[in-house]
């Protein structure tokens, strides 16, 4: 089933069963920017170990994009709300 959700305000399309990481990377090459200014990242281990795919929900909950399934209408940010 097709779904849509938002990342940093932009709409991303997905299918049911897609992880956030899968959906975002199918739509473009980057998942998020490195906090250390060395460019974009796309996650790495996909098994919840490297912690390189963090995103935040509109309730400021941190998620791992590799292990979170897309829900219709979910709103995500790639920036840590505690730092902005």
């Amino acid at each position: 089933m097709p779904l849509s959700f938002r990342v940093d305000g932009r709409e991303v399309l997905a299918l049911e069963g897609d992880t956030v990481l899968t959906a975002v990377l199918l739509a473009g090459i980057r998942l998020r920017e490195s906090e250390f200014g060395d460019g974009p990242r796309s996650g790495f281990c996909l098994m919840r170990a490297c912690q390189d795919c963090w995103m935040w929900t509109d309730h400021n909950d941190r998620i791992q994009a590799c292990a979170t399934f897309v829900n219709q209408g979910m709103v995500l940010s790639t920036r840590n709300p505690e730092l902005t």
Partner: protein
Amino acid sequence: MTTIVIVGAGPAGVRAAECLVAAGCRPIILDENDRSGGQIYRRQPPGFVRSAQTLYGTEAAKAEALHRSFDTLAGKVDYRPGTIAWGLHAGVIHTVKAGRVDRIAFDRLILATGATDRIMPVAGWTRPGVFSMGGAQIALKFQGCVPGRRPALVGTGPLLYLLANQYLKAGVTPAGVFDTTPFRRQLRLVGGLAWDPRTLLIGLRYRLELVRWGVPVRCGIDPLAIEGDPAVTGFVYAKSGKRHVIACDGVALGHGLRSETQLAELAGVSFAFDRRTRQWLPQRDEEGRTPLGTVYLAGDGAGIGGADVAEIEGKLAAWALLHDLNAAVDDGERTRALRQLRRAARFRAALDAGFPWPHDIAARLDDGVVVCRCETLTAGELRRVAAEGAPDLGRAKALSRIGMGRCQGRYCGSACAEILSAALGCDIADVGRLRPQAPTKPLHVDDVEASL
């Protein structure tokens, strides 16, 4: 009643649980994944309908058997999926599930925590489109995705050849397999023929299949860089002194596996340096007992043995635990399992000899190469703290923050040890290891405060 906790629902944890249930126990099973199966037998999300044959190939029957076994335990175990065990102190294990912390006082604990990829960094490995070898395989098994249309597989170990074949089956022709181990060295795999001919033949078939499809296989390469702007466009390597560039749009990178040993360390299990794999491993007897008396170890988390070994070790650990609680254990089955384990150990020795961790690369890494992807610390920084007098990894960590990032050294630890020992000119065992701290996976500050 005796509280028994198992951490991990992969092959080792599932078999341990099964034996405990057969003896009338009701273990608590904690697993970070949402479904059982662990890494190799990872299940696809609900609603995905690919066959076991498609997902697990030659290991389909084993995968199905393991899943079936676990499913029949429903109601007989206290299974807590999606739960991270992040701390362990004085007989209490600390967990978090969906932001809610909990603690469990246990009488006996089986750690079956599995492994993660072992990585030797290469310039450009933080670029989008580069994934760990295991991660690239998870993308395929769990999501039916491939990094790019022509991915390069870089590193060493059987997983390179397996994944390249899985790609071919999925209709993707890899740009090539680039193995740091020279072919000559890989001939040592033949030493395993007597102990597990089936696995060796499968490996041989994978190679032939790559040849048949015209996929380049280059062995004995020195990885130089993953290029891109910012997405991956090519992989640069040296072979026999010559520089080569191969076009690709994704990279799977991995040099074998490393054990997830943090909980064993927090429990107070003693560690010893294993020269063959150049890793620090928790000490246990053949059946998984640790000197602590209450903690048992099984599967890849205690030393890389592979999935079949993990199943055997899971059973042995459960039987050892039951025996120690004065419960009856079938000695015939136990003896048979021990015999299988010894056979498998001989095979593993050949596998480790044929696909060694390419530790010598560390000394050649340019100073600018990022080693810690969490905080973008470089090989040069590590060498600088070595020059300033850091005698071991513990001190280097304090001076440089290496290993203090979010992944807690899981992805940089092996390389850091090699870079430091090369810079100091000392034996690898003398640089020690990065000590884990609770929480072993990052928690929200709120979670930690709530649990104090």
